[in-house]
């Protein structure tokens, strides 16, 4: 078992030539969804999945697609009609005029020509419009489905997958599929129709000659199979190289301040150039294979001409075939191969899109670690009582974070967690807000296992303010409003006032309507923290979790926030994680944690009197104030 694990590990390490700077991921599967393992069986499974996904995309548009095919059939028919009309005109209409001065046939042909032209116009126009509608509707559905899936996937998935890769899946992979829907599907169908029609025509005219010329068919099939096999590998690789490129791009642009402040540019350029070159070669690989296929198809076309010419010529000389038949045959052969040559290019697009579809179906197939319950329970009027019953938790196999935690937090209590880094404070917060599920044991709210609550229900009752103070693109008001979508302006302002953010917001150029710029770049860390605070206050949950939510505040702001917290937390359950004991002091109860175990538990003043760990911390903190 261990040997097998090691083997896959070294294998993935070998794959990652950038390991020198990227480092080693804690999990060997960091870069991919679990469906994307490299063995033959999973690749086959993935292909199947991606086909199913394609089916899912097409199913709602069955009628539209049928309509499109019908248009193409008519279009194919009009294309075939033109040369026939010309032949008919030259053979019949001219003699009619010359012999009898009878123009009626010519007029008739002119009328049919006009009709064909109109039909062509209508077909092309309808096709472009209709295919744009169907194609875009399919893309739209896929985009939304993928987005929702990413939203549903657990935080731990996102932590290892990284936002850059999530973005890559939703931009470049999607782009690849868009390219396929936008270009050449009509060529594919028309070429298919064409091949079928011409094969039939050739078989009717001269079965023997047709059989000889069709001898090249197996060659084409072989070539096509070779290409789809090798290019699938190439394009799969290319999707990964471009994802790495995007991850790097997104991160280094997102953190451009750090890049510039640390003069990281040269090193960044070097690493990006590496990824860029990798991607160049990986992308080129499939196209180069396509060049081979393209040359090969041409060659096969010429080979067919040579064979038909020799065999047919011999037949003509022996009197088995008419000269005219041979001539017609050769013309048809040309019309047989020309569209196929065009199609080779589209095959390329198709292969690339298939790989992209595989990647997306890998995502859609990923198991959600923190899953929605099958039969969600609901809590009518929550009291806000939290319980941990023998909860075990670990992020990694060899590192137990919580070795069996039992804890009961009555409704309305404000609990502060204190302890060194790694003591498990944030883990407890994450378990309560169900970013993770416990390995064993139960975390419950008012007696209901959190796993039995629907996401929406859970978030209505329990809200966590995370350490990162994330602001979204938009105005300050919009960012606060996220706490309670649809909240009127007065309530937004009120929330800001309560946490003491109102003053600085009013001072901004457009007040509450000031755009925060990317990631809130316009505001200082402390200001962002206040906005996030206002957001959580507006959400008005039963249980509020504050994970280092005051660390960036200056003392006056912190004072304001503390005053606000006393009011806000008076009637709700709260878990506070803070290294600033000033924030901890407002708690009803303090837990001191050590390696995931509770070592002290009691009211803050009790603990200070008791003279343990907390008392020591408190002394140190008081000393730091002067």
């Amino acid at each position, binding site marked *: 078992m261990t040997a097998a694990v090691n083997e896959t590990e070294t294998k993935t390490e070998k794959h990652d030539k950038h390991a020198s700077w990227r*480092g080693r991921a*804690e999990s060997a599967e960091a870069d991919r969804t679990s469906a994307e393992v490299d063995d033959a069986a999973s690749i086959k499974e993935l292909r199947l999945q991606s086909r199913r996904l394609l089916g899912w995309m097409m199913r709602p548009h069955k009628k539209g697609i049928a309509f499109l095919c019908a248009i193409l059939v008519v279009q194919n028919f009009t294309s075939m009609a033109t*040369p026939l009309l010309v032949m008919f*005109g030259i053979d019949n209409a001219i003699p009619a005029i010359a012999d009898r001065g009878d123009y009626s046939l*010519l007029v008739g042909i002119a009328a049919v*020509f006009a009709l064909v032209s109109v039909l062509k116009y209508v077909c*092309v126009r309808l096709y472009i419009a209709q295919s744009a509608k169907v194609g875009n509707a399919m893309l739209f559905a896929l985009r939304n489905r993928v*987005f929702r899936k990413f*939203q549903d996937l657990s935080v731990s998935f*996102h*932590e*290892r997958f*990284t936002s*850059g890769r999530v973005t890559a899946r*939703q*931009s470049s992979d999607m782009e690849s599929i868009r390219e396929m829907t936008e270009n050449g599907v009509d060529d594919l169908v028309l070429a298919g129709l064409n091949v079928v029609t011409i094969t039939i025509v050739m078989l009717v005219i001269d079965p023997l000659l047709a059989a000889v010329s069709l001898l090249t068919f197996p060659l084409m099939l072989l070539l096509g199979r070779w290409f789809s096999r090798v290019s699938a590998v190439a394009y799969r690789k290319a999707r990964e190289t*471009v994802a790495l490129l*995007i991850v790097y791009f*997104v*991160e280094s642009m*997102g*953190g*451009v*301040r750090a890049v510039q*402040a640390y*003069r990281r540019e040269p090193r960044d350029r070097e690493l*990006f150039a590496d990824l860029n070159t990798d*991607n160049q070669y990986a992308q*080129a690989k499939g*196209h*180069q294979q396509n060049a*081979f296929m393209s*040359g090969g198809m*041409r*060659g096969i076309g*010429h*080979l067919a*001409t040579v064979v038909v*010419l020799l065999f047919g*010529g*011999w037949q003509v000389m022996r009197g088995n075939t008419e000269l005219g038949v041979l001539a017609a045959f050769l013309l048809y052969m040309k019309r047989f191969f020309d569209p196929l040559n065009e199609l080779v290019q589209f095959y390329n697009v198709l292969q690339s899109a298939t790989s992209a579809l595989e990647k997306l179906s890998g995502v859609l197939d990923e198991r959600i670690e923190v899953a929605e319950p099958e039969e969600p329970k609901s809590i009518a009027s929550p009291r806000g009582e939290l319980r941990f019953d023998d909860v075990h938790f670990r992020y990694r196999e060899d590192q137990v974070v919580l070795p069996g935690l039992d804890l009961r937090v009555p409704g309305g209590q404000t609990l502060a967690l204190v302890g*060194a*880094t790694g003591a498990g404070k944030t883990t407890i917060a994450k378990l309560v807000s169900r970013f993770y599920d416990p390995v064993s044991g139960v975390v419950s709210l008012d007696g209901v296992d959190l796993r039995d609550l629907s996401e929406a229900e859970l*978030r209505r009752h329990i809200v966590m303010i*995370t350490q*990162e103070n994330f602001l*979204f*693109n938009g105005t300050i008001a919009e960012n606060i409003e996220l*706490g309670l979508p649809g909240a009127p302006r007065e309530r937004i302002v009120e929330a800001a006032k309560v946490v003491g953010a109102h003053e*600085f917001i009013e001072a901004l150029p457009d007040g509450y309507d000031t755009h925060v*710029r*990317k990631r809130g770049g316009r505001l*200082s860390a402390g200001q962002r923290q206040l906005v996030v605070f206002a957001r959580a206050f507006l959400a008005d949950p039963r249980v509020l979790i504050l994970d280092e939510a005051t660390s*960036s505040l*200056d003392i006056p*702001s912190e*004072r304001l926030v503390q005053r606000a917290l006393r009011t806000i937390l008076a009637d709700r359950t709260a878990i506070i994680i803070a290294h600033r004991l000033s924030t901890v002091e407002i708690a009803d109860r303090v837990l001191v944690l050590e390696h995931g175990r509770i070592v002290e538990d009691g009211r803050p003043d009790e603990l200070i009197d008791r003279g343990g760990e907390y008392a020591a*911390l408190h002394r140190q903190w008081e000393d*730091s104030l*002067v």
Partner: protein
Amino acid sequence: MKKYLYPYRYRLAVLWSMVLLNIVSGLAIPPLVGRAIDGPIHDGDMAGLVAIVGVIAVLGAADALLQLARRYFQTTTAMAIEKDIRGALYEHLQVLHTGFHDRWQTGQLLARVTSDLGMIRRFFAGGLVFAITSIGMILIIMGQLLFIEWRLALIVAASAVPLFLIGRKFFREYLPAARSEQDQSGEVSSAAEEAALGIRAIKALGRGPLMAARFEKEAAELRSRSIFKSLIASRSWSGYDAIATSAVGAVLVFGSTMVAGGTLSVGDLTAFIMLQLALLWPIEATGWVMAHGNEAMTAADRVYEVFDTEPAIKDRPNARAVERSEVRGELVFEGVRFAFEDDSREILRGVDLRVEPGETVAIAGKTGSGKTTLVSLPSRLHDPTGGRILLDGTDIRDLRLENLRSVVTTAFEEATLFSMSVRENLALGRPDADERDLEEAVRVAQAEFVYDLPYGLDTRIGEQGLSLSGGQRQRLALARAVVVRPAVLVLDDPLSALDVHTEELVERALAQVLRGTTALVVVHRPSTVALADKVALLHEGRIAAFGAHSELMASSPEYVDVLSAEPEEVAA
């Protein structure tokens, strides 16, 4: 664009010669087939047939090989050019100032670096070659048509008029439509990126459905813009095929009357129409090529929009180099003013501050007083809108930017970590740092926890520091700044996320480092002030008080308000 094609000029020349040869080899075969039928096969000359077929086989092989080689080099070259432009764009983005990056969503930049460049590449590798081949074919065929019968050729030429008019209209309408579609596609990427980056915030509030609804709105807008664009195409070039077909009909009608009138032979009319039929496909494809060309043009516009943005912060013409070893580290602010470009109100209104070499000055002030802005100035992440900053008596704008930033290092409160190894993250500002430097920095920042990670310094930490706590991330960021060993160290509240105990340890270690370093430290708490020799209070855009902590506590009520914890208030 020329700049990027230039290095490939020989390759491109070879490529275009191959394209031409390929056209010739492709066109040479059909007449030979005709010759074989009319000659040896008609005459029953087996040996002659074998000879001609032999020639065809050789030509066919050459044609296939040319096709292969041409495609191969075409794609290889196009990819290489795409890579070059992408690299150049990346470099340009790196030097663009923070203001630019604050305004531009990463998704929009990403769309330019990936899909827009892809569009340009595809046009150059596919559409353009195709367009030129088509135009060549059209010209050759038109010449032949003129030669056969000029009056009929005029009919064909006349059909070019509506084609041209439609084409012109198409260009006018399609360009803005394609542009707006591409812009929206960038918005969709941005929405996707933001939702991924903010996943914790979204989950913590349970706003997944709301985000999905917002994303859906953007995606729906993209859908409708794409369809709108395609409808323009459907209205215009769908006529191309029909016009070309009508021209065939017209030629047939006029030609037939001419034949009946005896001014044209049936053979010539047949030959004429046969040739004209060969025109159908290139004309039909013109619309498609035009659409691709248009998209490539707007994509190039979008890319150039970025290239054309001049970095607001760059070297002055006579900027001079400065060595780390010659810097004493005297940092002086003289009447420094600052306002964001879209806000007429100044955040800094004449800051005067002198930091002696080796001195550590703390900056205190209320939230929003401009502390963070002030400390972003010495390394020129922003330039002051008035006044100047001197390093050892030289305006920092007269120093080379890369030198300046190696002398002045800024660590922000929010630790930006990248999905790379711990080592790479630590050595961000000094890629050549050795193990000892890293060890020392890790010790100073009390970040020894990194050695307990599964692979030590080689462990990859996530973009936001996979399962690292805020305090751990901040210690890494501090260690990163220490590794650089700059002459001037600027720290924006570097210890805010640390607990009291760790903070004390860090402070003790940091004090040694700061002994020989000029430092500017933003502080929020009295404990951090202990690091500093002096404190400057930033109030209403100016330095309102300057001196030792104890002095200010005694003399400045504003300072007391900002920095004193007033435990009695906490208890209240």
